[in-house]
């Protein structure tokens, strides 16, 4: 794509975002000339650039909007809700087309005739009121047209957590419809100088200091300018440039040139800025991370070195690195206003579609956050806003009945506090109904009724973050489907944040989100345990406790606790929580070590790191507490991603790696907190897998011959059946029987595992015992001599001499029992039944 088009897209998208806000703002202060002028300028610039770049359809739409706006600007038309909706629809259309350009480099086939007609109708002023144009309706008309509207057109796209980015039209759809590409003007000139400036002087941007530039360029003398300005003062309505031309002191071309310069300067004015790719910033950040690590290493060196000069240099290096780190972090900082900008529009559209009156107030838009965090909280915040709109703020009548102003107030507030950013979303709506939540929670089995009754309201409110919880009485398309709040919580916690809700019945609800400023470099406490170092993010750290003797540790039925200022603090031994497995070689060693550790803690010092997980404090017992350090968070390899106890790794000053503990995951692992935050589905899943693993341990014992005993994992057994011998039929050489409308092959266990059997008894037996085994759609019957029992426990299976169909042997009920490899037996007995390629050559 041409640079020129890219610039146009970036600039126009930014302008459009501003336009949304300004239009919504204009609705509340319709007389603001400034706002109108700014809106007009924006649309005008887009229109101008379009004409220049050859986006004819886009130009048409922008032109229709511009005409309407010019009437507003000139006071010939007053702003009504219809007009605003029309203009917003126009903004959506423009955004859709920009997305189209982004994807295909053409502005698409749709030139929005209906929308343009509407806009034209609206120009008729009073008459237009007869033609309602709510945003939702316009959004529908977009949907009907091939070019998609952006997800921003609000309520018509009710995905609970996905207010997508503006420029994402389904490009594929449109490409097919493309017949002729829009003409493309070769990019010879600066995009910043739309030709319309020259051709349509009445629409040119403010000519505030045009005279100054003319003087600067030597086109006019200072005296002439003074004369012209005087003319204006005494009532000449014309612009300075025109006056100067008419005075004959300069040519029209000079004025045009000066205007272009002015436009360029206008962009550069204020603080000088440069556009830098986000990739570059990310790379810089990584490099600074490396530098910080190298700095840490250097400092460690310098601590042991004697050289004073080296000390001085490393100190300076330290300072520079710190400063550089801060500044580079700053480049990634963005005001939270960047994501809030979308909310006035969202709120307006939602209010319209829910029939509510809502005023949005925003405090602290300038609060800055790291880019990655901004991205991460965008969706959760949008969801919270939607939620407040839908559930929090009541309908106007209800509000009046409650003695409140019909217009609800939704407040977004952001501020820094203790190295964290707090974001509050509050509404003055009905508030949460604690009793209803209690009831719901009990109904859903999330808590028992006694528990619920005991819980303070504050804890009750936080139940809304549990998966599958929704108290909305009616499910709307905005929210209330029981997904959402738990997703909000998960997403916020993913970036090390917390969510908390407070509510007063009848007064309103406040959701407070606390998030760290940045993710890339965080302060952490470094501890040692079992010879390895671990980093604990400072954010979850409450305090450090050092006990001179382990005697202060008591146990509640075996669970260690410590009385911290009179409260029992559950203790978690990091070594035990993590030592679930060491490398095989060390297994025995480890056990000794753990014992030793325990002995040590019983006698010597105990270091307790008091942490907080989901509001539940617990003490993590470690071998040693080392230091606090700024650590650079690095992601874990794919092979380690599944371990919830770690959130990442970092490289320490000595070049070695330390794992960063995920306090939440650790707490769950140690069962300090329930794993309730996992989604309901996951829970279900783990339950089934638990059930499976139980089955895994259950074994069906059967007799094979006189002495042989075999075991079959119960999980492989579909059914146990007893049939009269007469059911056995033959298909070729294969013994089969009819079973549930199927012909199933029969396999005699004695044929697979030879055993001395009482042939006579077998021959005389009238019935057979069949273990029905199903794999996929195929079923096989395994004939055993006698089913003995089902046992739960399983001793270690030892593999003696390899035998076909046997995994190994173990002892249960005082008998040596063979554990059968049922799939192998079936495959070898009935080749071709299951996947032929799976047949094991060696076992037939």
């Amino acid at each position, binding site marked *: 794509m041409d640079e020129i088009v890219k610039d146009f897209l970036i600039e126009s998208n930014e302008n459009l975002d501003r336009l949304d806000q300004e239009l919504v703002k204009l609705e509340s202060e319709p007389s603001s000339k400034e706002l109108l002028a700014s809106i007009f300028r924006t649309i005008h610039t887009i229109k101008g650039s379009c004409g220049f770049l050859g986006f004819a359809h886009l130009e048409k739409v922008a032109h229709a909007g511009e005409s309407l706006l010019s009437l507003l600007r000139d006071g010939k038309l007053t702003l009504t809700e219809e007009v605003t909706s029309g203009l917003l629809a126009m903004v959506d259309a423009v955004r859709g087309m920009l997305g189209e350009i982004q994807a295909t480099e053409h502005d698409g086939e749709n030139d929005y005739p209906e929308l343009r007609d509407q806009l034209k109708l609206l120009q008729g002023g009073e008459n237009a009121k007869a033609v309602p144009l709510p945003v939702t309706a316009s959004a529908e008309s977009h949907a009907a047209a091939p070019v998609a509207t952006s997800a921003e057109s609000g309520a018509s796209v009710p995905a609970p957590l996905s207010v997508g980015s503006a420029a994402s039209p389904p490009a594929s759809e449109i490409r097919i419809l493309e017949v002729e590409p829009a003409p493309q003007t070769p990019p010879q000139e600066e995009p910043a100088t739309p030709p319309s400036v020259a051709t349509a002087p009445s629409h040119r941007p403010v000519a505030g200091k045009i005279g100054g530039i003319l003087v600067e360029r030597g086109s006019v003398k200072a005296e002439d300018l003074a004369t012209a300005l005087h003319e204006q003062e005494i009532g000449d309505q014309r612009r300075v440039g025109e006056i100067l031309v008419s005075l004959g002191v300069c040519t029209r071309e000079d004025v045009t040139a000066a205007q272009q310069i002015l436009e360029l300067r206008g962009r550069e004015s204020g603080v000088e800025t440069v556009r830098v790719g986000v990739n570059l910033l990310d790379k810089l950040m990584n490099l600074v991370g490396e530098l910080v690590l190298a700095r840490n290493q250097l400092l460690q060196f310098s601590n042991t070195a004697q050289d004073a000069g080296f000390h001085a240099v490393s100190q300076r290096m330290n300072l520079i690195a710190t400063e550089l780190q801060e500044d580079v972090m700053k480049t990634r900082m963005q005001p939270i206003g960047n994501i809030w900008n979308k909310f006035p529009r969202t709120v307006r559209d939602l209010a319209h579609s829910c029939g509510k009156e809502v005023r949005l107030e925003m405090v602290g838009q300038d609060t800055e956050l790291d880019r990655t965090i901004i991205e991460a909280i965008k969706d959760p915040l949008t969801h919270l806003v939607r939620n407040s709109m839908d559930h929090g703020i009541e309908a106007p009548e209800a509000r009046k009945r409650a003695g409140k102003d019909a217009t609800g107030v939704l407040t977004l507030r952001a501020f820094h506090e203790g190295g964290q950013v707090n974001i509050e979303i509050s509404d003055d709506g009905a508030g949460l109904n604690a009793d209803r939540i209690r009831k719901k929670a009990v109904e859903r089995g999330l808590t028992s009724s006694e528990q619920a009754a005991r819980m303070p309201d504050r804890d009750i409110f936080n139940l809304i973050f549990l998966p599958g919880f929704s108290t909305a009485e009616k499910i709307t398309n905005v929210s209330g489907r029981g997904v959402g709040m738990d997703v909000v919580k998960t997403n916020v916690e993913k970036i090390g944040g917390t969510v908390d809700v407070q509510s007063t019945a009848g007064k309103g609800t406040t959701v407070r989100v606390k998030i760290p400023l940045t993710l890339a470099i965080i302060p952490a406490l470094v501890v040692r345990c079992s010879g390895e170092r671990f980093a604990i993010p400072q954010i979850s750290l409450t305090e450090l406790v050092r006990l001179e003797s382990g005697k202060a540790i008591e146990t509640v039925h075996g669970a260690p606790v410590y009385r911290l200022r009179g409260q029992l603090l559950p203790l978690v031994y990091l070594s035990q929580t993590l030592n679930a497995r060491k*490398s095989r070689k060390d297994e025995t060693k480890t056990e000794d070590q753990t014992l030793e550790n325990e002995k040590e803690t019983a006698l010597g010092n105990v270091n307790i790191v008091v942490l907080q997980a989901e509001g539940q404090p617990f003490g993590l017992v470690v071998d040693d507490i080392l230091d606090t350090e700024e650590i650079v968070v690095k992601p874990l390899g794919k092979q*380690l991603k599944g371990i919830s106890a770690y959130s990442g790794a970092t*490289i320490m000053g000595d070049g070695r790696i330390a794992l960063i503990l995920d306090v939440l995951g650790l707490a769950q692992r140690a069962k300090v907190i329930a794993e309730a935050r996992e989604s309901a589905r996951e829970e279900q899943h783990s339950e089934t897998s638990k059930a499976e693993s139980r089955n895994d341990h259950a074994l069906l014992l059967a007799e094979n011959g006189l002495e042989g005993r075999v075991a079959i994992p119960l999980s492989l057994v579909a059914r146990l059946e007893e049939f009269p011998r007469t059911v056995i039929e033959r298909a070729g050489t294969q013994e089969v029987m009819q079973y549930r409308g199927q012909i199933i092959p029969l396999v005699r266990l004695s044929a697979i595992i030879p055993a001395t059997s009482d042939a006579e008894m077998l021959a005389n037996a009238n019935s057979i015992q069949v273990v029905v085994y199903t794999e996929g759609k195929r079923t096989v019957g395994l004939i055993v001599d006698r089913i003995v029992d089902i046992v739960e426990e399983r001793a270690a299976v030892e593999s003696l001499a390899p035998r076909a169909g046997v995994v190994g042997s173990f002892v249960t009920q005082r008998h040596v029992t063979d554990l059968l490899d049922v799939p192998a037996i079936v495959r070898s007995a009935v080749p071709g039944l299951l996947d032929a390629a799976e047949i094991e050559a060696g076992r037939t």
Partner: protein
Amino acid sequence: MASQQFCTFLLDGYLFGVPVPQVQEVIRFHEMTRVPLAHEVVEGMINLRGQIVVAIDLRRRLALRERADGELPINVVVRTPDGAVSLLVDEIGEVIEVEQSSFEAPPETLRGEVRSMILGVHKLEGKLLHVLDTEKACQVSERAQAAVSGR
């Protein structure tokens, strides 16, 4: 006939090979940080010039015998779609060039998970060169081992 270069190494007496372009580097010995709770084939992590790389014990991965105590493994760092991974091997061999014609798929008798990791063998004079599917070998189940929590 197309030929291919293999970086070879020994594992419990078997000769293995990885296509040269897949190998990022070979490091003799590297300090290892162990990762408790990780899958048993994950021996630990190494710091490769600021990059954290997971080291997989190939012997364990391929269900071979454990390396004797005191034998230091060698890191063969390979490129995978998910970043670099270090494979721990016994001994590094030379780079050899083999013809495609000497290749043969593994025999039917080679079974189980190991089969998925061995693409086949090149029949060399007096020995067989096992061709490792590095991507498969580096795919370790993400499921953490069951927790053995405290009391």
